[in-house]
């Protein structure tokens, strides 16, 4: 750091604040030092800065100029850190909000349901798959895993096959809407991953589904 540069940035109001703030005192001391140094070296400092420095010629010598510079740099770094943290926090909030909105949007297109022992798509299922196709078209980097599930009333091996058939049935429909089959992976969990376990039609219905899991292609 050059002395002249330091002189130029000294604030105007520092004289009045000397009594109240340590910061002011340091600045004053700093200025005094600089003044002395400038006189010795015959530094051609601007008039404005020079005037200010004249007001504090009697201050005793304080911390070295290196220390003062370091303290100042620390202070600046702290402030910069706080500003950056604030920006990061805001970004995280924005991202969470975006993700929540995305999740809410995807939740509506996260499952389709089937009749007992059937893999045919209902009209409701087709409507949801139409939206899935729109999403995939709008986000070319998105990939999709379709998980086929069954209620537990059938035979577990047959249900593994049925789950695969359900997932394939959804995948075929998406393909018919122009989605590249390579973006879609299918897997059957049969009756092995129920979302509920009550022996009621409501619960069985929930378990007879194809679940859509989205991912971003890197």
């Amino acid at each position, binding site marked *: 750091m050059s002395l002249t540069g330091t002189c130029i940035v000294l604030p105007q109001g520092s004289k009045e604040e000397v009594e109240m703030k340590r910061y002011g005192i340091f600045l004053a001391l700093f200025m005094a030092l600089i003044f002395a140094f400038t006189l010795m070296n015959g530094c051609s400092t601007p008039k404005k800065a020079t005037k200010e420095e004249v007001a504090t010629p009697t201050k005793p010598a304080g911390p070295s100029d290196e220390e003062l510079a370091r303290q100042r740099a620390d202070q600046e770094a702290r402030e910069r850190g706080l500003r950056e943290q604030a920006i990061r926090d805001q970004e995280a909030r924005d991202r969470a909000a975006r993700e929540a909105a995305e999740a809410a949007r995807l939740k509506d297109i996260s499952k389709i349901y089937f009749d007992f*022992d059937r893999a045919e798509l209902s009209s409701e299922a087709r409507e949801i798959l139409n939206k899935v196709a729109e999403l995939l078209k709008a986000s070319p980097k998105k990939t999709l895993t379709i998980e086929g599930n069954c209620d537990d009333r*059938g*035979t*577990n*091996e*047959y249900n*593994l*096959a*049925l*789950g*695969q*058939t359900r997932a*394939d049935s959804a995948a075929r429909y998406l393909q018919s809407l122009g989605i590249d089959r390579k973006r879609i*992976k*299918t*897997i*059957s*969990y049969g009756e*092995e*991953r129920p979302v509920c376990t009550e022996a009621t039609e409501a619960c069985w219905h929930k378990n007879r589904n194809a679940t859509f899991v989205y991912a971003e292609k890197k």
Partner: protein
Amino acid sequence: MRKRRSIQYLFTSILLVLAMVPAAEGKVYINIDSPSAQKFPIAITTFKNMTGASAQESLSPWFADTLGKTLEITGFFNILDRKAFLVDQAKLGIATENIQFPAWTGIGAESLVTGGFTVNGRDLTLECRLFDAVQGKLIVGKRYTGKLEERKEMVVRFAQEILIALTGEKGLFDTKIAFSGKKGGSSEIYYVNFDGTEQVKLTNYRTITLSPKWSPDGKQISFLSYKDGAPDLFTMELNRQTARKILSTGRLNLPGTWSADSKRMLVTSSKDGSEEIYILTVADGRLTRLTNDPSIDVSPTWSPDGKQIAFVSDRGGTPQIYLMDASGANVRRLTFEGGYNTSPAWHPRANRVAYEGRADGNFQIMTMETEGGAPARLTINGGRNENPAWSPDGRYIAFVSRQGGKARVCVMNSNGTNIRVIHEGLDNYVSPTWSPHLNLY
């Protein structure tokens, strides 16, 4: 696999050879294949302590009780209560000339077992005799020598002799039953002895692991596991407990039964689109496709001669049992009653298939002759009974029973009687598979 006991049995010395009646040419005392077979009444006396000292007195009832329990799980015997016995055969003597036969027929015993033992340090000599109480003659006698701690094994060996003598065939004491047991979100393969003892947890993948199938050579179990993310097929050698991946297609793969030579396996795979049945050569993973239908084809099982295959297909609209030739030709539907018939298991010696079908609103174990005909319903309890697996002799069926919110692995006689639990306590069970004879005794 359980270690083969190293005892040096000198057990084969047959006592009283003159009185032996070879079972092969003798009469069959128990026709276990008869659906109306009554349990065979047998008396087992406390064993005579021939050591001369009063040491090891507690073994006298132990031998009788252990033999009784062992015979009882076969489901063929009515073990008569010792309290009803009229004479103390251990005091009178245990050889043929000492037996008071009328005292045994008098309480309804058709058969009588006597025994004696000599303990010398850790050495044990055990003599066992089986009598025809009605005809008053010895059927089979054996002497076993070994260590005291091998006494259970000696008892099981004599139980085998009793079964051979009375039913014409040795029992299943050297067989085990494997199954998939679920707890929480994951399932693992376990196996237990025929009587439910000695549980072994074969896998520990903490994922979905299903459909164990025991190889006919007894050395391996194949299964399906999601341990690498997708439903892949594995085999595990029981003595090494290391899994080998044999089929991975990125889509659904399911094991069917093994060929008699344990070299090939029927499998279901959706690798070419819909679920089709293939023959997988285990050594090199080669697949030969058998079915060609856009519907679900699953759960294939070979006939004992390997010439036919039973499987499940929903090509007719609902899941039903179908048969085809081993080449995949000549597909014909076997089951027509009920809208959901699955899990076929071909009888090891007969043209008969066990399966699960719906009856009274629940799944029940059924059998049907492969020539067709009316289904015979075996389970009648109020629960849900699924996944039948034949014992290697066809005399028993292991299955999963769910009732009152609890699941159990059960075994029943092939006529549906004598249901007993061999495993419970996990959240759910599927797919029991019966080992071949493992020659443990």
